């Protein structure tokens, strides 16, 4: 079962994401702030992280930079979740090592397709 870490501080969105990903066959881990995200990623070593950029304690960009700079976690795929219109955030996330991004509001099908695409890209390399 493929592991995914959801980093999202909005409870309803996080729960809905979790339910959707479980049905799609993923094993889901969860973090509600940046620091917990780093600890969970190091411990559980997910294949992919869905990372909200506006997080308490430690921002998503910093989380991305830290995980991509560590040998152990650098191969974990990261999809940045950002608000439409915040183009600067996307550029900063890519500079920090994010593999892709999805803009909020996103719908279920689009998100799942994006996850599959990013995971497939990783397998091809």
């Amino acid at each position, binding site marked *: 079962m493929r592991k995914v870490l959801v980093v999202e501080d909005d409870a309803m969105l996080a729960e809905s994401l979790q*339910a959707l990903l479980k049905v799609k066959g993923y094993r889901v881990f969860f973090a509600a702030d940046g620091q917990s995200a780093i600890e969970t990623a190091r411990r559980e070593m997910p294949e992919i992280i869905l990372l909200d950029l506006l997080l308490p304690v430690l921002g998503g960009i910093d989380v991305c930079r830290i995980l991509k700079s560590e040998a152990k976690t650098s191969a974990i795929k990261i999809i940045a979740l950002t608000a439409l*219109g*915040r183009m600067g955030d996307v550029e900063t996330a890519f500079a920090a090592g994010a593999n892709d991004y999805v803009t909020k509001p996103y719908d279920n099908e689009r998100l799942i397709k994006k996850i599959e695409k990013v995971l497939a890209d990783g397998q091809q390399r």
Partner: protein
Amino acid sequence: MSAFFLFVAGAAAGASICACFLMRRGRLRGRMLSFVAHELNTPITGLNMTVLNFLSGVFGPMPKDQEEWMRMMRGQVQRLNSLVGDLRDFLHLEFHRDLHLRKEEVDLAQLLREALEATRIGVSRDDVPLDVDVPERLPRVSADQERIFRVFLAVLAHARKFRRQGALSLKARAQDGALRVTVGFASMPPAPGQAERSLELFYPVSGNSQVLASVGVGLGLGRAIVEMHGGSMSLSIEADGRTLVEVCLPAK
């Protein structure tokens, strides 16, 4: 004389300070509105995802009678999403002047079907006959999918709002290296000059005694977004009284 010059200089300085103050307040308001619009993304995403989870059975089977309610809720969330998206784009276009497109390869035929489906709940309730002529396949376009989707929603919403009688038509064609999407409807004859003004960035068009904006900030934002894609949007009134709104996008 020197007192007069002093008065003029003082007035000019005062006006300049006032203008700076107002501009600063304007910028602050713009920033605050942008912040609110961006913050709304998260609850809308949460609502949308939860509703979709209910509809797709992620939370388990759902009674048929409740499914209809959930579909209506999905329509409302989509509408809310469009309004917030329009507000956000308007702010980026007008206040920050930094609206950037995120282009990708888009299947326009599919996007049109989705826009029609999103509009259809309301259309069927209003008992509006639809005359749809969209080929199964159209050449792909390089476009900002989410924004072009909203443009189509806005045009269809405009047609629904201003249609007086007869069918609402939707036609799509590939022609001369471009994709042309035309929405037609029989409407009340607009007051002189109003048809053209419908495509201004914000112009609340009047219908009967009501003042109606099409959706969000109107067709004007849609036109601005289409033009950013290198396309065009036009609105014309035919001799038989039908209004035609045409969106033209360059094919990939």
